[in-house]
């Protein structure tokens, strides 16, 4: 095979990762044009069209809408239905279950803007959720509207739009609770100016939180009941998960390359099989019980292992993704806690992998890794 020293195509995109509403502008425009359903106030699309945008389909005018979420439609329907009600939406799940991805696309479809975003961290201050001050102006003019620096939440309320909060449970509890008034009363008081922001219809909040870290700063029960919780499941079948990994590898990695690089279908399938089997503690044919390592082994991790392997093969190998490019990534992903996971991994490798004839190359590659 010709040595494909592929390099990043400098003309492909201007920024590393443009927001969803830019990438899928033509799909959104086509949906707006063909949408005959009832649109709630400030919504750019009817709820039915939002579902089509997320789940994919073909419009009457022939425009093909790509599937943003591969999985059960009921998850997306529950999310959309929540945004139609008074309550905010909490997407809960283990890492790599497309929480952020779904939140971004929902915001893009509903408000046409997915960039109103607050990243939850343990250092987040209340001002980031409400508003802060331009101190130079504050000192010069005193507390006036012009000296106020609005937060993304403030903006979303004013415009009747969707605001996203990533990793809600990482935010300290007392700061989290400042959302209660915003979500229940739909107002944001500004006592310094003796005014308040009243949210327009269409304002709502999509938060994501990690199942595994749930205990970090668990929501207070008062805040919890302002949210409807939708749990994002792990992909239910091998086929579904392989599809997800393929789509994302194509979109995230291969598209940035100048040359046409074939999708490593077989390697993706084997990798996803390994991850699923270890994650579920059972072989795909349900015949054998396995020990489960502590790692999450989600589809997102499979994607990064593939991308890493592809990069290795492109820059250091012959351009074809081989078992040897994959093996270090698999090992790294599976063994998170060396004391406990190493044995589990070796047992899997020496029983399940070894037993599969067509996996001989992968088994050999993994055996060399130690």
């Amino acid at each position, binding site marked *: 095979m010709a040595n494909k020293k592929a390099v990043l195509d400098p003309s492909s995109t201007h920024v590393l990762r443009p927001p969803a509403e830019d990438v899928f502008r033509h799909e959104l425009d086509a949906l707006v044009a063909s949408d005959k359903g009832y649109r709630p106030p400030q919504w750019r699309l009817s709820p039915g069209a939002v579902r089509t945008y997320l789940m994919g389909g073909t419009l009457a005018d022939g425009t093909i809408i790509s599937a943003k979420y591969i999985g059960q439609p009921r998850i997306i329907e529950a999310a959309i239905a929540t945004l139609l009600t008074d309550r905010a939406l909490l997407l809960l799940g283990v890492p790599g279950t497309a929480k952020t991805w779904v939140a971004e696309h929902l915001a893009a479809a509903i408000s046409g803007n997915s960039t109103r975003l607050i990243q939850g961290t343990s250092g987040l201050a209340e001002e980031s959720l409400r508003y802060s001050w331009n101190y130079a102006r504050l000192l010069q003019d005193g507390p006036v509207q012009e000296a106020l620096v609005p937060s993304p939440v403030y903006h979303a309320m004013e415009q009747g739009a969707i605001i996203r909060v990533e990793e809600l449970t990482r935010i300290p509890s007392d700061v989290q609770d400042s959302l209660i008034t915003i979500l229940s009363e739909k107002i944001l008081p500004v006592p310094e100016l003796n005014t308040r922001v009243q949210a327009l219809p269409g304002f709502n909040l999509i938060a994501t939180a990690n199942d595994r870290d749930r205990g970090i700063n668990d929501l207070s029960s008062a805040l919890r009941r302002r949210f*409807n*919780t939708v*749990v994002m499941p792990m992909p239910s079948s091998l086929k579904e998960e392989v599809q997800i990994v393929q789509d994302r590898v194509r979109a995230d990695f291969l598209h940035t390359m100048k040359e046409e690089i074939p999708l490593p279908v077989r390697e993706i399938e084997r990798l996803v099989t390994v991850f699923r089997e270890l994650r579920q503690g059972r072989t795909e044919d349900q015949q054998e019980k396995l020990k489960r390592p502590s790692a999450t082994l989600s589809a997102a991790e499979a994607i990064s292992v593939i991308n890493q392997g592809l990069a290795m093969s492109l820059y250091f190998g012959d351009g074809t993704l081989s078992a040897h490019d994959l093996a270090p990534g698999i090992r790294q992903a599976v063994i998170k806690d060396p004391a406990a996971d190493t044995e589990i991994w070796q047992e899997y490798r020496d029983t399940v992998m070894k037993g599969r004839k067509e996996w001989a190359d992968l088994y050999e590659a993994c055996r060399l890794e130690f």
Partner: protein
Amino acid sequence: MNLSSDLRIFGIRHHGPGSARRLLEALHHWKPDCILIECPADGQAALDLIGDPGLVPPLALLIYSPQRPGNAAHLPFARFSPEWLAARYATSRKVPVIAMDLPWGIQDQLPDQIPGQRRKDPFAIVATHMGYTDTERWWEYYFEQVHGDEDLFPAIAGLMSEIRNEMDDADDPELQMREAWMRRTMREYQARGYQRIAVVCGAYHVPGLNLKDFDAVTDQALVQQVAAFPTASTWVPWTYHNLATQSGYGAGVLSPAWYDLLFEHRDRTTIHWMTRTAQLLRSKDHTVPPASVPASVEMAEALATLRNMHQPGFVELEEAALATMAHGDLSWLEVIRDKNLIGDRMGKVPDTIPQTPLQEDFHTTVRSARLKRALETPEKVLLDLDLRKKTNALASILLHRLILLNLPWGVLRSAGDRVKGSFRERWTLQWKKLFGMRLLEAGLWGLTLPEAAHRYTIHRAEETVDMAPVSQWLRECLSADLPHTSARLAQILMARVAESVDILDLMKTLTPLVYVTQYGERKPAVQEELLTLIDRLMIRIRVGLASSLLGLSDEQAMEMPGRIRQLTVDMQLLKDQEEKKNIFQILVNAIESDGIHPYLGGALARFLLEEGIWTSDQFVRHLREQLQGEPDMMKASSWCSGLLTGSEALLLHQPDLWQAIDAWVAAIPEASFTTVLPILRRTFTGYSVGSKRQIAILIKQRRGAGSTRISEPFILEDAFRDTVLPVLHRWIFPSKV
């Protein structure tokens, strides 16, 4: 024929709450003077009793043949079943209600359709066409959740005509014959001079009952082809669970509780469902604030809108409750789903209703086994049976069969076993009201006790995952004189033995089998198969035992020693010395490994000593290894607990053991003492008072008097307590006697 008579056909869906409301409205409006319902004509006798206020649905109309045991039809009715409401309406208006379908005595003789050749479900065709994968849901959305609009009847009739045109029914002789019989009944009641005849039937039959399209003479010839065998009919109580799981005539429904709600609360289903769900969740100790209920209703409605439905269905309700009340935790809803979807409503039948065949069989058998007095006594009755006597053997078989039917009227004393090699069984009998209800329900499985016991046991065996209960039932079947059942159970076990990975289950399965093959009085007809099965079990156990001894939880570790003892007893019975040696080798290896649970390690050490596998020296060496140095306190005390639980003699008569334990206890640092104490205390509480006293004395002797103070526990021996205390009590409180 009376041409002025008016006849209307109401196509319904069996157990459809929407159909039921629609039908009731139509009947009230039109006031028929005769109602024909789709029910086999030989069920008329039971149908005539429907006005009895003691009959509370869910019920099943039972048609059976006294001459052909094993054949019976159950027609279930819920309070939301259209036929039930139509029949109750008729009795309240004093107009006749007639069972118009082909008698079951004929239907049962017609050849069954072979499943593979079954016609495609006609409704499924339309449902698929309209984008539904599930026919039930399609019908529910279009015809059951809508308001009771009478105008829908002609619409349904029209739809059915279209569907019937697409279907080729000519190859379905049963359908042809049933509809011919129904038409004949309709003509008959016209001829009798009724003016307004309401015909209530499954929607699919509507086009087939259009009298204009069929010839009376041909119909007559068709139904006379087969003669009905004699049948009888009665009512039996039914449950929503039966309704949800049984199929057959008039079929069941997947979600009775949900239909019940749809029927009772019409437009406000969503609110009622959510309120009930919140209550059920709270009953399971979940916090569900009242404000969550309206939020759930709102979300369910939003979901219904998104899915183009006029009202949320069960799926939407559950998804909404999941997001709003259960915080996305599906297990919350799974626990209550049974109650929410199926429900636990049970029907009632008054004493005035004729007995079911199974009840009759039961009472006949009770009489011939001379147990009638025992049945009528509310107190406990002690019964000693000599199985060589005919009536006694009969009684024994009856009681064992009842146990298989989950009706433990009699309980075997002396640890549930027959005294080995004797022909005696000692029972304690006490009839409970609950058993009457269970007997009625058991009628579902057969018309006679052996038949019902056979079918029910096979059903349970097929549903159960574990093998051990099946093996227990097999043993029971031999005592209950059900050779066919035990043969089938042996087959089931044989099929499972290869799959099972649970060694404890395999060991539990082995014991009853060993019993029946080695000294059951009635040698099983399947002796050879059982011996093969035992062989297979032994292999599986031997192969899996080593790994199953490691990595056990506390509970498993407590259970294991008893199982292993039993296993060696079983092998002793099988006279399989070779295998026994293998097993002991596995135990010896396991006890030295690190992964073994200390409790199990202790118990095994004692076992090896008792069985003579270990010499006293070997045992003591092992003991020292476990306790000397600075062992982990929890581990060491758990080990001691395993070693000493239930083995007082060992401690008292093995001076080496005594010393080692004594030295270890004395050396426990004060800080760890409180952690270790509960485990040790648990170990010794099982000992008899005598042993405890002896231990105390031993301690006193070896430690020297004065260094330890021993308070003698004030515990009365059982015998003393039972005889002396009542006398003392009477003596002190004479007035209260």
